[in-house]
């Protein structure tokens, strides 16, 4: 079974803090994705990566950055957390030509 793990299920941070969300997949997938999920808005793509050290902006990249130093790991960084970044963050991975994605359990981030 594909396994996508996220470093924390719940996280509480203060406004202005730098926040790291980590995602690891064990299926040697080339593609990795970060989404945020908000009630009534569904999932929105923040950033994605097709290869190590490669990144592409998604639909809502403002206020976020990413890092992919190893194939299995994709990190989402909030440089200076703000209250409007309180949300559920979902990581996903997918193989080449499969077109589907496998999701982690999510990190519920609260910024106070």
């Amino acid at each position, binding site marked *: 079974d594909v396994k996508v793990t996220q470093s924390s299920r719940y996280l509480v941070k203060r406004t202005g803090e730098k926040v790291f969300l980590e995602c690891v997949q064990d299926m040697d997938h080339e593609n990795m994705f970060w989404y945020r999920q908000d009630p009534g*808005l*569904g999932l929105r793509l923040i950033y994605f990566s097709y290869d190590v050290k490669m990144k592409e902006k998604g639909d809502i990249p403002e206020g976020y950055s990413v890092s992919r130093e190893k194939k299995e790991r994709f990190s989402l960084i909030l440089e200076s957390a703000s209250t409007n970044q309180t949300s559920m963050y979902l990581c996903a991975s997918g193989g080449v030509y499969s*077109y589907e994605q496998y999701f982690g359990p*999510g990190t519920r981030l609260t910024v106070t």
Partner: protein
Amino acid sequence: AQSVTQLDSQVPVFEEAPVELRCNYSSSVSVYLFWYVQYPNQGLQLLLKYLSGSTLVKGINGFEAEFNKSQTSFHLRKPSVHISDTAEYFCAVSLLLGGSNYKLTFGKGTLLTVNP
């Protein structure tokens, strides 16, 4: 640009009743279509997918969906639901960007609530 519209944000049904969750998409190119399910406090799990071939696709837990190209729809159905089907369901479209690169666009979700 592609988009996905889930026509109902909430669908309440009684146990053992049939259910249909509606999804329409817009895209100027060929697409691949998916339904995902999210149980409370969990990530998303793939229910079924349409890549090519038969337009009627069967998935896990007794769900099926039909791809209708002329109506640009991909509705999800189950003939008899259980309490355990209570969850949020997301329709998604995969856009091939070039080579092996792709991304998914999701609908806003439909909350299915099955009542006893």
